[in-house]
C-alpha cells in the first residue's frame, strides 16, 4: 500500500470496443489540489464516475484511504468522505436552495422515517443547527438572498455554486469537481476559483476536471493529463506547460 489517499491500479473501462479509461497507476496525495485535463473524450468524466462508484470498471482496483472501493455503491463512497459534483449540474430543481442544502447536510440517521415521525427535540435541535450551518455557507457563497427560491430558478452559474455549497456542507475530505467553471460567467468564475483555492487551503483534497486551462494553471498544485483514456503527463503546472506529449495531444488535434 502506498501513502496516497486515492490510488488506482490497472483501471480499465471500455464502451463497446472504445477504451474510455486505461490507467496503469495513479495516486493522489492528501491535501493536494490536482487538476485533470485532456482533450474531449479523454475519459476524465468516466474516471470520476469510476472512482465515485457511478460506473463499474471492467478491471483494476480503486483504493480510497487504503480500502478497496472498486465495487462500492456511490453513496457508500460519499459517506467515506469523497463527494463529487457533476458536469451537467445536478441540483434538486423543485426544492428551495435552503432545502437543497439541508438535505445534503443532514446525516443519514437524521433522515430516518422513524425519527421523522417522532419529531424528537434532539432532531429539532439538529435541524436548527443544520439551518445555521446552511445559512453560513450560503452567506459565504453569496446566495443567501436566494435561500427560498426554487433551485430551478437559478442561473447556470448559481446552480454550480449551489452544487458546490451542497458538496461542502458535510465537510468532506476529498472533493471531485467536474467542470466547476463550465458555463459560468467570468465574474462568478473568479469567485468560484477563489472558493476552491480556499477549500484547498483548509486542507481538503481536491480533484478537478476543467477545460479552462488558464484557471487550471493558476490554481493547481499538480496537473494530470489524460488522452484517449491513458495518462500522458503528470506534474506541476510549469512542467505540464512545456511537456511535449501534452502539446501534441492538444495542438495535434487542432491542426488536423
Amino acid at each position, binding site marked *: 500500500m502506498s501513502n496516497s489517499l486515492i490510488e488506482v491500479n490497472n483501471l480499465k473501462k471500455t464502451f463497446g470496443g472504445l477504451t474510455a479509461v486505461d490507467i496503469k497507476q495513479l495516486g493522489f496525495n492528501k491535501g493536494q489540489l490536482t487538476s485533470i485535463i485532456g482533450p474531449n473524450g479523454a475519459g476524465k468524466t468516466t474516471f470520476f464516475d469510476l472512482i*465515485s*462508484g*457511478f460506473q463499474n470498471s471492467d478491471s483494476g482496483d480503486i483504493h480510497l484511504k487504503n480500502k478497496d472501493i472498486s465495487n462500492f*455503491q*456511490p*453513496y*457508500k463512497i*460519499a*459517506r467515506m468522505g469523497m*463527494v*463529487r*459534483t*457533476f458536469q451537467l449540474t*445536478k*441540483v*434538486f*430543481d*423543485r*426544492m428551495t436552495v435552503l*432545502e437543497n442544502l*439541508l*438535505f*445534503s447536510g*443532514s446525516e*443519514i440517521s*437524521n*433522515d*430516518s*422515517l422513524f*425519527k*421523522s*415521525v417522532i*419529531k424528537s427535540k434532539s*432532531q429539532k435541535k439538529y*435541524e436548527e443547527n443544520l439551518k445555521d450551518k446552511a445559512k453560513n455557507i450560503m452567506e459565504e457563497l453569496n446566495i443567501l438572498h436566494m435561500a427560498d427560491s*426554487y433551485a*430551478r430558478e437559478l442561473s447556470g452559474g448559481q446552480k454550480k455554486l449551489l452544487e458546490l455549497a*451542497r*458538496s461542502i456542507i*458535510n465537510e468532506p475530505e476529498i472533493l471531485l469537481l467536474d467542470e466547476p467553471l463550465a458555463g459560468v460567467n467570468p465574474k462568478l468564475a473568479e469567485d468560484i476559483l477563489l472558493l476552491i483555492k480556499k477549500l484547498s487551503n483548509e486542507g481538503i483534497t481536491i480533484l478537478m476536471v476543467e477545460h479552462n486551462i488558464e484557471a487550471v494553471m493558476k490554481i493547481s498544485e499538480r496537473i494530470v493529463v489524460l488522452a484517449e483514456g491513458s495518462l500522458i503527463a503528470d506534474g506541476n503546472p510549469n512542467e505540464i506547460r512545456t511537456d511535449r506529449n501534452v502539446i501534441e495531444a492538444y495542438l495535434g488535434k487542432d491542426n488536423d
Partner: protein
Amino acid sequence: MKISNKFLFAVFLTGFSIYLVFALNPEGASRILLNLLTFAGIYGLSAIGLNVHFGWTGLLNFGHASFMGVGAYVTLILMPHAAGREGEITSTGLPFIVALIIGILSAALFGLLLGLPAIRLRGDYLAIVTIAAAEIFRLLVRDLESITGGVYGIINYTENLQQYRPNFINNFSESLGFSPSQAWVCLVAWISILFTVLFLKRLNNSPWGRALRAVREDEDAVRAMGKNAVWLKLQSFMLGAGIAGLSGVLLAFNYGSLETTVFVPLLTFYVWAIMILGGVGTITGPIFGSIIFWVIISETDRLAFILFENANGQQLAGVRFLLVGLLIMALMIFRPSGLLGKKEELLLDVK
C-alpha cells in the same frame, strides 16, 4: 396557517358539488350522498397513498390496485369468512384489528417486493412493471380458488367490522334512512383519512419527506450526497402501499362481498384521476379531488340517460369511464397541478 385562495376554491368547489347532488336529486339525496362520500373517502385514502409514491418520490406506480387488493384479501382471509363456489365457511379467525394490521403490513411488504424493480428502472419502465405485477396479482387471485374464492369471491365477512358499530350510528342512520353499516364504513374511512393526513403532514416537512423529494428530483445527486436512494424509494413504496392496503380493506367492507373484478387496472386509473384532480404532491388535495370526482361519477348516469333512451348497465358504466378518461386527459393537458398542487413543484417537464 395561511389559507390560500387555491384552498378556498377547492373547498368552494367541493361544497358546490355536494350541493349539486341535492339539487339534482330531489329524492333520496342524503342516501346518494352517503354512498358517494363512502367511496370518496376510500378512494381518497388510496389516492393519498399514491401521492406518496408519485407526488413525493416521483415513482410512476400503475399497480396501485394490487396494493389495495393485497390488503383486502389478506385481511379478509385471516378473519371468519366464506369463500369460493361452495361458500366454504371459515368460522375461526383473528379479530378485525389484528387482521387489519397484518393486512396493511402485507400490502406494505408487497410494496417492497414491487419496489425492487424500481431500484434499476426509470419512470416509464416502472409504470409497465407495476401494471404488469398488478395483473399477475389479479390473475393469481382468480386462480387460487381454494384460498381466495377465485371468481366466486369472498362473502360473509362484514360482521367482523360491523360488530364494533357504535349505537349512535344506528340511531342516526334510522332517522335519515341510511344503511347503518355503510354509514359505519364511511365514518371509519374518514377517520382513517384524518389520521393518515395528520401522519403525512408530520412527515411532509420532516427530513425524511425532504429526502423523498430529493429522490424525486435527482437520484444521482442523492447518491452523491451519500444517501441510499434505493432504500428511500423502497420506504416510500411501503408507506404508500400500506395506506392503499387500508383503503382496499375498507373498499371490501363497503362492497360487502369481494370479487376479483374489483382490483382491475381501471381501479388504479380512478385513483390516478383523483390524485391529479386533487393535486399531485399535496396531502389534502386528494380528499377534495375524491369528493368532486365521485359527484361527477354518480351524476353522469344522468348523461347516459340523455345519450341513450333506455340506458342499460353497460352503457351507464361506459359513460362513466368515458368521462374518467376525458378527465385524466384534460387535467393533464390543461391543469396538471389539479386543485391544490403547486405549479413550481409540478412534475410536468420530467423527461
